[in-house]
């Protein structure tokens, strides 16, 4: 059975849905194929930018600006069909409570806190970062010792002398935004599904062949079907899609394989989900060595904070949960936070790409224009911005 569309979008995460929404708004006819049994199984979206710099000479101005809460909002709102709410620390003490959509995705304003041992190798880097932030007008606040450590989410004042906190230095940076990823992408999926119809948004779909007649695909069960594609096929590149994309490029555009390979570098992260006995302040995202620490929850934080802490730790290799991981997490928990014990409720490995280039790779698949849209994983607001630029350029 043949169906006709203008654009065929292929991907596993939120990116093809954002593209579907944008193209539909332009009046284009769109279909979405997902090779996975369901959307978001790859979980390639992040609520915030982990700010993992290879070098502090990176374009901090743009990077910091992109993460401001208002910018995050501007990036995410165009394609989202409902409200997105915002929360700041000041809201806790506000007497006039406006009406808020509690179940909407929320953007939270949180400071970034960089922490490093004074005698460690990373102190030059942090100082450099501080100075750059100062030059750019972000008004960072240099802190040392206990006054720095106190800002940590989940900080406890127990046993201060034994923890060596006076050896820590760092600074409190600007407030950046983080978004409820699950609410955003679920809301988007519901809306796009309703808009396109279930017959145009398919899962467990594998493309068998592409030619001028269209893209022939097959679902997990049933006979092969064909989408006749009028304008282009767009692939949204996330780590899970890499293998199939490589095969396509080798087949249709082997000269682009070098560009394809050089476009990304893998970053492995461990995502730890820890329980706190007491509420953890939701005002700060802390950076300590290779780790990012923040209070985790959905929606508007309750007064005092949530009882869960998220620790994202960058791992050098694909081998997860080595000695280094346990040592690093325990350093954060026992030394910086001062807890007597911690409970791991969850841990999962995450793989993201570090993108060296973000422009689409374009080629011709037997007469059908094909584009590979890169940078479709990582912070959600980045994905939204990237997809928007890519679609506007198509």
């Amino acid at each position, binding site marked *: 059975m043949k169906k006709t569309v203008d654009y065929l979008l292929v991907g596993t995460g939120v990116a093809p849905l954002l593209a579907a929404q944008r193209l539909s708004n332009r009046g284009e006819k769109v279909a979405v194929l997902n090779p996975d049994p369901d959307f978001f199984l790859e979980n390639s979206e992040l609520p915030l930018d982990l700010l993992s710099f290879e070098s502090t000479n990176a374009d901090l101005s743009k990077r910091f600006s992109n993460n401001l809460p208002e910018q995050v909002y501007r990036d995410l709102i165009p394609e989202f069909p409902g409200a997105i709410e915002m929360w700041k620390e000041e809201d806790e003490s506000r007497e006039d409570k406006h009406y808020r959509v509690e179940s909407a995705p929320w953007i939270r304003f949180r400071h970034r806190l960089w922490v490093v041992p004074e005698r460690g190798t990373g102190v030059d880097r942090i100082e450099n970062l501080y100075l750059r932030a100062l030059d750019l007008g972000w008004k960072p606040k240099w802190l040392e010792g206990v006054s720095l450590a106190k800002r940590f989410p989940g900080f406890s004042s127990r046993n201060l002398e034994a923890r060596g906190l006076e050896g820590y230095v760092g600074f409190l940076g600007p407030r950046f935004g983080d978004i409820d990823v699950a609410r955003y992408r679920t809301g988007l999926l519901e809306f796009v599904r309703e808009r396109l119809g279930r017959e145009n948004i398919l899962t467990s779909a594998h493309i068998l062949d592409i030619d001028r007649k269209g893209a022939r695909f097959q679902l997990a069960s049933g006979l092969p079907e064909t989408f006749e594609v009028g304008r282009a096929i767009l692939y949204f590149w996330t780590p899970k899609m890499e293998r199939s994309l490589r095969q396509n490029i080798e087949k249709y555009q082997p000269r682009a394989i070098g560009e394809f390979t050089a476009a990304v570098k893998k970053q492995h992260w461990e995502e730890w989900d820890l329980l706190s006995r007491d509420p953890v302040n939701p005002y700060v995202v802390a950076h300590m060595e290779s780790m990012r620490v923040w209070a985790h929850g959905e929606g508007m934080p309750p007064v005092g904070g949530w009882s869960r802490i998220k620790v994202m730790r960058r791992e050098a290799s694909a081998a997860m949960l080595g000695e280094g991981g*346990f040592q690093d997490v325990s*350093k954060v928990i026992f030394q910086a936070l001062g807890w007597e014990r911690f409970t791991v409720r969850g841990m999962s490995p995450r793989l993201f790409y570090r993108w060296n280039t973000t422009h689409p790779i374009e080629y011709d698949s037997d007469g059908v224009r094909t584009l590979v849209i890169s940078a479709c994983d990582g912070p959600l607001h980045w994905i939204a911005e990237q997809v928007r630029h890519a679609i506007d350029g198509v």
Partner: protein
Amino acid sequence: MMEVKVRDSTIDVAILAGPRLKQWPTQGARVLSRHCADAGLRVGWYGGPGMRVRGVLPLEGSGGVVMIEDAQKRIHRIQAKAAIKIIPHLEFPTPFQGWYSAGLIPESTARKLLSQGSLSWQPVVVILGSGNRALKLGSELIQKKVTNRVVCLESVFDSAQAWEVERRRFEILGGKIIFGKPARLTKKTPFSWELKVQDSQGMRVMDVARVISVGPFDVDSGFREYPSGSFLVEWENTEAQSVAADVEGVLLDENRAAVLAARIIKGIGTASIGLKTDSKALWAAKQKLIELESTRDRRFKWTYDGKWLDGESKKLLGEFSGTPKKLEASRIVASIECVESIGCRVCEKACPSNAIRIERDSKGTATKFLVEDDCTGCGFCLQACPSQVPVMIEGEPSESFTTLIFPYVETPPLKKGDRVGLLNRKGEVLTNSRVLDQFLDGETPLWKIEVPSHLIWEARGIVSLAPKQEFENAEDIYEEKGARVEVQIQGDVRRVREGQSISVALFENGMARPNDILVCEDGSCGLCQIEVDGVRRFACESTIHQGMAIRFTRDHEQSSELCPCNRISVSELESKCELTNPDTLEALAQVTDVAKGKCHGLLCQKSCTRIAKEWGVQVDRYADWGFPWVDWVFK
């Protein structure tokens, strides 16, 4: 600072003990490892008190990394090509009002309380489910005088799920099987509850001492490999170590082990040389599984004309190869009326004279069973049969009275001359009779009962008609295990038995909380936290001693929610299914916090799966590989 040592290694097949597994290794794990090892694979068992499996991190493609913590707190990171997580049976019904309470406990907790506690659950115990394990438990409760009445409530299927032989024993002992859905459970006193049941005639109200959840509440899916092709398998095993303790469970596990082993060997062994499966054993295992699983769809029933077998059943009985065809005076011969094809064979192994040789055709019909000429009437088959199916017949039908020999294990024991009632296979009284003599002593004593000859094919059970003994003191009924000491529980002074676990003591004293119902023994559920003399502990891991002060730190209330840990109701989950329309359970897990609470899904994962299935979510073969399997505490 915490010092953590991580040691790396690799293995082909890792067989892992899941949370709450008390018996390790299980029979299924043993058989699986034997098959894999025989084929040349490197196999490891991981579990038990000194080696706690924390979870598995799936690798891309197939296999996973197993994380284990040993008694010295060293962490072992083992890369396995195949990982099999063995979990115990744990069934909770689809949530109804008040289900999460100390009044509803799973089978494992009930057995734990029975083995450790001096308990009386009078007057009624309701068991949710009608499978073999449910009826077997019910029969044990009656025989051990824990309760006078047991009612098995079947809420999912149209017919009772147990084999005919288990149903027969249960009903002969006085158990009842009813059909309906539990609607509400309310606490009346510390030792009694009110259960409302919705059946075809309306709402029925029962005063019960305890509700025990056994199941099954869904079709048994065997082992679950998820994702498909990953060789990461979750497998429910029975913890019974002998066939007699759980016939169905052990048979299923042993044969599934062979099938699973063949799949693993075929999948992993492609890169290795010389790995072979025993194809003959595999074929036999598959046939056995077909035999076991096919009986589910067509449960055998005797048909009656009033209290008596009707013509069709009489004919079937007469033609069945397990019943003797020649009855002679002064000769004792066994009658093994195990018509349903269940593949048990315990009697065959117990018979010293090889008179029981079971052969069945492809439809399960017994073509050969009892070789009556070889039967010496020793009675070993009666004592060995887990369901007490066989009887022995002495005498000719042409005489007025014949003798039947029955097993009788209840207390008080029978005596020569005692009056007994003869029961049919449904437990209905046919007539009265008397005990002639004891035939065999032992764990399962056998008794000669005088039976009118016209009832030799009808009477299949006995009930003692001796006057009920009056007891003045509780000590006359129960044999107290352990001296009583004084402790404080929530500020109240109580006398409880020394040396038992605090969880059991709480149940005995009617002070158990909803979060005590799992009684996992190793703290793995993380729910039963208490404070003992100011120190936080788990109730299931701590034992009673004189003078201790126990306070509850975390007091769950009785609730009707699907996920009591995260307070998520059934309607909330259903609305997520409706709104997000997930195709897979994994996608549903991303939009809900069900099974992500402290218990890591022990209380709610299965119920969540059943509800999701009703909404069209693909749940077959799903296994949750969330890491870690239980909360992992670091100090």
